[in-house]
Every structure is written in C-alpha cells, then in structure tokens.
C-alpha cells in the first residue's frame, strides 16, 4: 500500500500534468505485476462494488472513537469526507511502522470481508484502521466504500503506460477498455507486443466530440462536414463476434443483457462487425430520454416493459467490418461502408440519418426544432476525420441547443464535499407558487471560487434554521439556473423534475420577488411531452 499511497499523494498534490505523468511512470516501472494491475484498475476510474457501506463505517467509528455522535457529525461535516474523518480520528498504534502489505495484498485481505459476519468485519476493519498510516487508512476506506477517485484522466494513464511499455497509446487505450480481472495476467497483456490480440469482446475506445462554442461559420464550408442529429439516448458500441454479441456503453459498462432486441437484430450482422450508435426508446420514431431511463431503472426486464418501451439502435459509425479495423479511414468512407452494410443486412440495425442542408443558416433553422425531435442538437464530423481515441477538438463537434433557464431563489444550502468541504456549496432553489416558494432544483456547479466564498459568507449570516448539515436561509438571493429538460414528476413536491440543473449565473440585479413561478416552468412541459404520456 505504501507505494500506491505515495503515488496517490503525489497525484493529489500537484496540478502539473508533467509531474503527474512522471509520478505514474515511476510507479509503473517499479510496481509488481499484481499491484500495477490493481493500480490501473483504480486509476482508470473503476471501483469495487461497495464492500462496506458508509453508514456502517460511521457506526464503527462512533464506537471506536468514543466521541458523542453530534461531535462526530460536526467533525465529519467540517472534514467533508468520511474516509478522511476516520483517518484523522482513529488513534493508530502502528503509525511509525505502517503495514508492509502491498496494494494487491490489501485487496486480497479486504475481499475476504463479504464472507464474514458484521461483527467479524468490524473487528477486522477497525484493526486495519490502526495498522495503516493515515493516508493508507484513508485509501482503505475509499476502496471499501467504492468511492476511490484519483485526480488523473484516462488519457494520462494511457500516456504513462505507453511510455512504460513503449507501445502506441491507441493500443494501450484499447487494452484498457471493458471489464477485466486485475491481476498479473492483465499486466502481462498490457505489456504484450502490439500485434498480440486480446479478448475480442472488448470495445474500442470511444471517439468523443468537443462542444462547439464558436459560430459554425468558422468551420468553413458545410459540404466538408458530415452532419447528424445528436441523439439523447445511450451511446453504445455493438460488437458482433462469431461467439456472440456484446453491447458496451460509453461508460465501458457491459449492457448486453439490457437490450435483447438489439442483440437479436445484431445476429443478422456479418461476424466481426463493430458498430457505434445510439440506443433509443422507440415507437414509430424516437421517444424522450425519460422513457428510456424508466426502462433502465427497472431491475428486471419483464415482457411488459419490453412491450411498453421498445428500443432501437441507430448506427452512425462503423469501426470494424469483416475483422478489419476501419478507425483510421475517413468517416466519409466509413459512412459509405455503413450504408452498404445497412442495405446488405437491413435486419441488423437502423441508420442514423444524415442531416443535409445547403448552408449553416439552414442548419441553424433545423437545429431550432431539436426539442420537438427529442434530440440535443447536432453532431458535426469532418468528412476526413478518423475515429480517434478520446475527445477530438477540431474534427468532431457537438453543436448543442441552448439550455432552458429559470430564475430561482436560494432556499437551502449544505456543505459540499472534497475540495468544497466545509463550504456551503450545495444549494436548493425554489420558484414562486402563489405566496409560497416551492423547491424545484438542486445545483452546485457554475460559480467561481470568489462567488462561492461570498455566497458562503452570506448564507452563514442569513441562516434561518439548521437541520443537521442543511441550513434554510432567508429567501433573498436569485440565481439563473440552466437545465436540459423538464418532466412531470409525482415524486417531487413541485410536480416537475428538471434534468441536469446547474447555476448559469448569480442574478444580483434581481430581487426574489422577480424570480420565476411554477406556472412558468409548467409552461415548458407542453413542448416536452411528459414521460407518463407513453404509459
């Protein structure tokens, strides 16, 4: 654990990309195979399924520390992180000679927990808290609760491994995709010569678009671009191999079982075909994301759900055909092959149509109708572009529609976590409902550090009541809240649920009386048919 916790500290204590890269390279050069594999597992954002819940850890800490519960709560809300609170409060006997176990040995240890009784678990974990130094204790808790996050991007891990293995980054990126068992075998596979083929059920790294902020005219002629609708569904890669079909989400989750109808149709594809596309709820055309979300939310796919909310794959790219990797070919060529494939085996999938227009203004007009089509705008892909790894600026753009906005009144605040621990940064906003204010959205991002500090101070001076960590404040501050969609909701007091709310700006010019009303929000529902209509 020593080496890994030192790596964590180094990554955590610098914002310099070069310093982070150097620390990663140093670590991977020295780490034993088994440790290196686990390190990749965590660094690439993978998490163990929660071994012990945070409520349980909190209970154990309460007993171990002997502190009154309220004081523990107050301390926790100051620290802003349970794993760290434990590391700070537990008195450890071995602080000067921390446990010599390696990362993989620790994982071996803690993976024995699920088989134990709660009492045994407590005995072991509390013992481990004392055995490790503060940093190790913090990491152990993070791993236990499935919350370990490290401040490195996937790209940085790929670059470091490319340097350590002397392999091209694209090869590394591909090898890191999908699910794998962290162990010496995986580390050997990472280090294998470039030609070595791995598990054929793994997806390719997704090619991502950058948001277009400039005017599209700056991109040159419309004819240079391949234009698609930006669907609001689940981005997925469908791999058809001789021994089956695999569907991977953009978050590298295997979702094959969730979409049997896509799997059924994919059987009609030639063996060794990989398609990139969007899975959408579909009945005589695309349905809003809310419907798809309801289907994903169900634990079991019953015949009833399959009938109520059928899905469809709309394909927009072809990454492999007859076993040939096409990713380096221009998208114009890949699109042609995709269309040919579609006419050859129309049973396999549907095509995401191209949007055709003579100029940017015509596209602008089409884009204005995005909401009626349940799309988020358009994708602009340069005709010569390859299927790159990661986010592509300059050749792949997402040209999204402007979000909805409303002016809401700040009514509740509570402390954030991590970098914002101890600062009141999680806000709840309300709109007018007659003489009352009704909460409609929670948001925390969108303010700069200076504004956060000012709002924090204001909240402390204008707190009306405290409920644990939550404070109600005088309803005075107004913020403009941006959001993507609105649906009717039986679960929210306000009767509506907004999607992806975030703070657009602080409206210091507006008194609370001029904030929006619930009627204003309900007015938007007409454009955005409710998910419940479909039922």
């Amino acid at each position: 654990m020593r080496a890994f916790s030192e790596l964590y500290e180094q990554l955590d204590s610098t914002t310099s990309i070069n310093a982070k890269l150097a620390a990663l390279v140093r670590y991977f050069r020295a780490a034993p195979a088994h440790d290196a594999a686990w390190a990749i597992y965590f660094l690439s954002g993978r998490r163990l399924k929660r071994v012990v819940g945070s409520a349980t850890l909190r209970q154990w800490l309460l007993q171990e520390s002997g502190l009154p519960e309220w004081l523990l709560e107050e301390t926790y809300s100051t620290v802003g992180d349970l794993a760290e609170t434990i590391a700070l409060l537990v008195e450890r006997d071995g602080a000067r000679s921390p446990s010599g176990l390696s990362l993989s040995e620790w994982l071996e240890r803690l993976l024995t927990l699920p088989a134990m009784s709660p009492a045994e678990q407590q005995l072991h974990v509390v013992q481990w808290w004392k055995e490790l130094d503060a940093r190790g204790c913090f990491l152990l808790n993070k791993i236990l609760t499935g919350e370990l996050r490290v401040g490195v991007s996937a790209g940085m891990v790929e670059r470091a491994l490319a340097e350590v293995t002397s392999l091209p980054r694209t090869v590394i990126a591909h090898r890191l995709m999908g699910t794998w068992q962290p162990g010496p075998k995986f580390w050997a596979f990472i280090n294998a010569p470039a030609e070595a083929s791995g598990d054929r059920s793994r997806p390719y790294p997704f090619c991502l678009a950058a948001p277009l902020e400039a005017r599209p005219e700056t991109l040159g002629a419309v004819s240079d671009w391949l234009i698609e609708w930006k669907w609001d569904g689940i981005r997925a890669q469908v791999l058809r191999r001789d021994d089956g079909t695999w569907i991977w989400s953009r978050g590298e989750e295997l979702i094959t079982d969730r979409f049997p109808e896509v799997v059924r149709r994919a059987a009609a594809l030639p063996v060794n075909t990989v398609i990139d596309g969007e899975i959408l709820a579909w009945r005589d055309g695309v349905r809003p994301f809310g419907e798809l979300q309801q289907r994903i939310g169900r634990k079991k796919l019953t015949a009833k759900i399959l009938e109520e909310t059928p899905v469809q794959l709309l394909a927009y790219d072809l990454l492999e055909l007859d076993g040939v990797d096409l990713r380096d070919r221009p998208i114009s060529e890949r699109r042609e092959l995709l269309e040919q494939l579609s006419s050859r085996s129309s049973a396999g999938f549907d095509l995401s149509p191209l949007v055709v227009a003579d100029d940017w203004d015509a596209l602008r007009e089409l884009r204005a109708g995005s909401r009626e089509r349940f799309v988020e705008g358009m994708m602009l892909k340069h005709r010569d572009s390859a299927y790159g790894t990661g986010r592509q600026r300059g050749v792949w753009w997402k040209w999204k529609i402007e979000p909805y906005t409303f002016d809401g009144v700040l009514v509740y605040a509570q402390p954030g976590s991590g970098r914002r621990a101890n600062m009141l940064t999680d806000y709840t906003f309300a709109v007018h409902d007659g003489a009352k204010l009704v909460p409609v959205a929670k948001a925390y991002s969108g303010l700069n550090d200076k504004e956060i500090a000012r709002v924090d101070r204001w909240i402390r001076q204008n707190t009306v009541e405290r409920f644990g960590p939550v404070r109600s404040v005088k309803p005075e501050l107004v913020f403009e809240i941006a959001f993507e969609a609105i649906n009717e909701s039986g679960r929210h007091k306000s009767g509506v649920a907004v999607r992806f709310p975030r703070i657009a700006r602080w409206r210091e010019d507006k008194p609370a009386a001029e904030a929006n009303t619930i009627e204003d929000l309900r007015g938007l529902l007409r454009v955005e048919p409710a998910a419940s209509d479909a039922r």
Partner: protein
Amino acid sequence: MEAALITVTDKGLYCPQADFHIDPWQPVARAVITHAHGDHARSGSEQYFAAGEGAGVLRHRLGRDLPLQTLAYGEVFRIGPAVLSLHPAGHVLGSAQVRIEIDGRTWVVTGDYKRTPDPTCAPFTPVRCDVLISEATFALPCYSWPDTRDVVEEIYRWWQANREQGIASVLFAYAFGKAQRVLAELLAFSDEPVYGHGAVLPLVEEYRRAGISMLPTLPVEKTKKADYAGALIIAPPSAAGSTWMRRFGDASTGFCSGWMRIRGARRRRGYDRGFVLSDHADWPGLLQTIADSGARKVLLTHGYSDALVRYLREQGVDADALRTAYGEEE
C-alpha cells in the same frame, strides 16, 4: 453570583475591578498584551504591559517609542486591587497567558497558545485558576497535530525534491511566528540560506536579536531570477497569487497551517502542498489545558468554541462561549 474578573466590552476583554484591558481592539488606558499578532496588539493605548521576550517584536509592530512596561514570566505586578503575572503560552516569541488574582479569586486568560514544543519561544506552562478563558480555534477532534519533527522533515524533503527538478519552493507561513519557527526547525536538516519576503525578514531580525537561532536568510528583492531555481522562499500567505510570485517562474507552493490538516481545505486554497504546523492548541491540547487548570468554569473564545462548550458541558464542566473579535488566521 460572584462578580466576573474579566468581561467582554466593545473594546475587548476588561477587568472592571482594576480598570485594565487584555488585548483591546480599541485604544484604552491600560492594555495587557498576550502577544504581538495584529488582532491582539493594536496601537493607540496609553500604557502597555507585556512579557519582556516579546518587547522587540511588539515595538517593531506598534512603534519604537511604545509606552511599554515589560515583565519577566512569573513576575508579579499590580494594577489597582489586581495581582497580575504573565506565564509562557508557547504561541510565538514573547506570548503570554495572563493570570489575574483579586481577593483570593484567580482567573487566567490564555491568549493564543500551543503545547507542542517550539524552539523559538518558552514552552507553555499550565496555570491553576478558578476561571479559565481559553482560545478554541481548533476545537474539533479532527485537529490533532502530527509530530513537528515529521512535518519539518516533510517540508525539507519537498524542498529537496523541487530542487532536483530545478524549481523554487515557495513556503507560505505567517510572517510573525510561523516563519521563524520553520527557519529554526529546519536547522536540524540544513545550514543553507533561505530567501525571505519583505514582510518576513524584519521579524526574523527581531528573533535573532532575541537570541533565537535560525537558518541564514537573504532578501528576495535583490536576487536575480536564475538564483531561485532550487531555493526555498518564505512568504506570508497574502503573497500567494500576487505579481510578486512571478519572479520565481514555475514554483511549487506550500502552506504551513493547522487548517492544512483537512485535505479539502488545502485543495480549496490551491497550494501544491499543505503542511500541518500550527501555533495553536489542538483538540487534545485544549482538553489537557482545561484539565490542568483545575478551573471550575471555562470560557471559550473564537474558532469552534460552540462545539467545545457543548462537549465540556456534557463532561460536567461549566463552560460558556465568550464573543470576541479575534481572527482565525493562521
């Protein structure tokens, strides 16, 4: 009820029986000063009383011709009916607790204090009393200080690692107290000169005059840019993010403070490294001091005083919060 020996007025802590203030935040007739930090020592009063060790820094801050009467630690002096004495608080050079005795009743005002060893000032000595007025800046259990030696070694290793990469290390520390403590503690690892910000160096000189050994120091202003590669520079936190920083090029930054105990606090302030080095008492230090005092009543000022009040009451100690205007900068 017995009359309080110390009350809070709009000018500060006040003894009505003997008509003097402790660390007043407005001009008064007689001011007893616990230490020379800006929120405790303010100018304009007619007469000052302070520990002799702190005279240099106090005069540096409030003026050479300050009407100051200095006292040795433990020396007894009288103001009206009150018998007073000053006792080491271990906070910074010359810092003192104030013991006040009137008619057989004893109150102690700790001022800011710490119980961890510090080579730049006399160590804290517990004083018995009936009523204790203690600071509570870090009164939560998560604030307990690691061994100073380990922290200073960390600072030294950080400096050396930066040197290997050819970059400067800029260490932010309170210009009075913390900066000198770091310079003194680093003697265990190095004998090289350290660069000091213009706000730090005059106080370093005062410390040297008081006989405190520290690493040699050089002024930042008169140095060419190239010389900063691999150097350690000590500056007040106010210099962070200022144009003054540009001269060091690509530097690594660190901050010495008790607040750095919490990872979120460090990340929020945007320093590369946080070093847990405080001149205040930590949670165990506060509890120890309250126990050592034998006080039957404890009054707490600033910081997390509400939490400590509630905790003490639950432990059967008569405790209350006292609202003062002292800051929590560290």
